[in-house]
């Protein structure tokens, strides 16, 4: 009786990840399996007091239920501005059943900072 030959091939790839897998903003579709409260709770367990849940009005965007925003972004620019940017540039591409990760890199640029030069007496 002949012996059956078996072999295997494994491809490996590993990398360092950060948890939670979102650092800036998460957009939640109204029919996505994971809802806002559940995701926020899971984030809170890993990184307490970092993210905030913002509900989106269904009449305005029927497909979007909420966004979860890193509070650090809100410290740099007003919530209204953040939501305006998302409304114009992200929400139109989100389907009801999707959860979308958004990298929201804010750079603050200040120009013409002026002040008086004070000469110290030597």
């Amino acid at each position, binding site marked *: 009786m002949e012996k059956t030959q078996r072999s295997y091939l494994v491809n490996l790839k590993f990398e360092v990840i950060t948890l939670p897998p979102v650092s800036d903003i998460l957009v939640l579709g*109204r*029919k*996505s*399996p*994971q*809802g*806002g*409260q*559940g995701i926020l*709770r899971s984030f809170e367990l890993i990184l307490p007091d970092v993210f905030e849940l913002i509900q989106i009005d269904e009449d305005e965007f029927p497909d979007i239920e909420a966004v979860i925003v890193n509070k650090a972004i809100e410290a740099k620019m007003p919530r209204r501005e953040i939501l305006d940017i998302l409304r114009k540039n992200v929400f139109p591409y989100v389907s009801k*059943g999707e959860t979308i990760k958004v990298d929201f890199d804010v750079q603050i640029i200040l120009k013409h900072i002026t002040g008086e030069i004070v000469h110290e007496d030597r």
Partner: protein
Amino acid sequence: MRIGDLVSNDEVCVSPFTSVDAVEGKILERGYLVIKDQGKFIGILTADDVLSSGHNLVIDCCRKKPLVKADEDAERVMRRMLSEGLQVVPVVDEEAAYIGSVQTSQILRRILEITKRADEVKWVNVVGDASFENTKNSFSSELFHNTRNQLQAILSAVDMLRAAPGAFETQLLLESIESNARMLDELITTIHSSHFDSN
């Protein structure tokens, strides 16, 4: 009738981060579940909430429902529930603490119980030499008192039907209309056969 008199405490409570899969049998059996976190009231979850959201967790599926004060009028609350498409609402006391819940079917049943109470027909048959005006006044007065409740119940039920309730509520309201109409029919037949039908 106060809505607080109809409050049900026979309810099943679940914690907010329970999976929908784990409680779907209970929702189908009970119609709704009360979400509490360590004894604190969070909300009411209905089968409609679960179907319309599609999320995995109870807390994510739960849609906010208006709080009803215990001393509010039951019929007014009923109209509001029907117009807003709500099957169940949470009831709170004067300090806004949750005391229980009320379903539309409970309110309808109570309204039906009240309106189904048969009114006794008191008819004074005026005979002999009494004046025609006295007879007429007596008849008019009795007819008014014995038909008004049924007519009001019918009009009220028709009004509620206009608020487009669900199939179950429609059935109960139609039963109310039919039973009150039958009572009126019986009353009129009794009056006619007892006092006016010489054949």
